[in-house]
């Protein structure tokens, strides 16, 4: 399983890349895509929508499972990867290349509470 060191991770299996301009880019982890199986459908919020930490902001579906995308942080959606919505199967081959939304964070310091790659790997192994 691939877990890049430069990213932060949420217990709900989203990855977060903090950018220098106070925004964050979000996607789902390699572990998450593997658990789901072949992704066939993705539903993302519209630009401008507020993200509330720990609340769902979209869904990702395989044939036999559906999973909420849960916001790891508070903020506002400033960019949405609509191309990914049209071809969500890419998530299975390149989970970290498949960003879903870019969020302008209310408080970038909130990200300190997220897991490091090492912590996330330990978390997934606990099962």
């Amino acid at each position: 399983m691939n877990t890049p060191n430069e990213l932060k991770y949420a217990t709900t299996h989203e990855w977060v890349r903090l950018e220098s301009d106070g925004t964050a880019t979000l996607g789902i982890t390699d572990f998450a895509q593997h658990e789901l199986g072949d992704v066939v459908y993705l539903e993302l919020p519209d630009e401008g929508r507020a993200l509330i930490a720990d609340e769902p902001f979209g869904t990702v579906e395989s044939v036999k499972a559906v999973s909420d995308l849960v916001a790891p942080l508070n903020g506002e959606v400033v960019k949405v990867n609509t191309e990914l919505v049209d071809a969500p199967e890419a998530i299975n081959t390149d989970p970290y290349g498949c960003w879903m939304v870019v969020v302008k964070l209310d408080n970038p310091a909130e990200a300190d509470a997220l897991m490091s790659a090492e912590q996330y790997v330990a978390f997934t192994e606990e099962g």
Partner: protein
Amino acid sequence: MFSEPTIFERSRPGRHSNAVPVPDGADITAFLPAESLRAELPLPEVSEIDTVRHFTRLSQTNFGIDLGFYPLGSCTMKYNPRVHERVAAMPGFADIHPYQAPATCQGALRVMYELQGYLAEIGGMDAVTLQPVAGAQGEMTGLLLIRAYHRSRGDDGRTEMLVPDSAHGTNPATASLVGMSIVKVPSNARGRVDVEAVKAKVGPRTAGMMMTNPNTLGLFEDQIAEIAEVVHAAGGLMYGDGANLNAIIGVARPGDMGFDVMHFNLHKTFTTPHGGGGPGAGPVAVKAILEPFLPSPTVARAADGTYGWAGDRPQTIGRLHSFNGNFGILVRAYTYIRTLGPEGLRGVAENAVLNANYVRVGVAEKFQIAYPEACMHEFVASAQEQKKTTGVRALDVGKRLMDYGYHPPTVYFPLIVPEAMMIEPTETETRETLDEFVAAMQSIADEDPELVKSAPHTMPVKRVDEVGAAKNLNIRWEPSK
């Protein structure tokens, strides 16, 4: 290899059957304005023999109880008596209109009235509505009744429904559809709902609790009376999912366990045919406190012995069906109860539980049993060991069983058992059938894993590309351009 084109591909312009006469009157525009008419009607044009062959061929690729053993857990796939079909097709039942005067349909009303009574007796309940047409609709009816009961007492704040984590997906779905929030109750190490866990979850917001007994693991919830007491003491009501009634019919009654409302699956316990997914029927039985809220009408018997509709319920939750529910299914269930009688109904439970335990002991020689103890009418085995050692999953075992001439068990349910295979043999199978099935399971456990993983090998099609089906959605036939 099997290949049957769609009926649309069999169509040839101008072909038709002789089923209906050709009208002889005036042109249709004499009656209906031309601008209201459709330009074309794109239906197929086929001959009668093509129609018969098409559907007969399709039937030959489908599996049913009539073809073989169907151990699909929680679905109670037992023999569907042919006499049920004969009775339901009698003109006195099939060719009557729901709005004809009660004086002209006394027989139909009598069947409904007596069935209401039989179901109340079987459930240990006081009153019955036959209107819900499926188990899921029965659940919805039951929860609306609970909601109406609380509201009638001005108790509007009760919006939480307790649901065990082993529950069928319809339980949480239904609770949410009637506007209730779900409070999940974990199962304990014995695979049962723990009375202490319930105590920790009830409160002034508790509308009630939904339980299936025996539960989806095939285990009897032996703390049911205490659980009901806790829920009642908190002001909630108990909903009984009747999906597994086959295990206890004539032996124990939901009403005696503390349930206030329950539904029956007539297509399970009372063996009306599943028909590929319906029509079924999901009558609901209640204790007297819920009777004022039942859907209208029910059937009543007057002092002079005549039957009629009883519809005056100002507090009713409303109607759930255009007419009186799935009457044709009710007639079949009535026939079944009259055929079996009291000893026969108890014999259903006895032999269903006997068969399940008999198969369990055999399957346990090769597969893990999720909760290795005496089960009721079904048990849950797991392919977890096989998955670890050979990569063979529950799904693969199921697919391989097809090659042996069986329908697969229910797989991956309940959710709390990994690699679950839920096996329900029912009471109508012979000992030899059960022996052969156990032998097949054992043989699959010893087979080349690659053979199992690529099964089935003898079906009309190989494994189907479900991902492709979801991605490239093709849900209707269209002429090729």
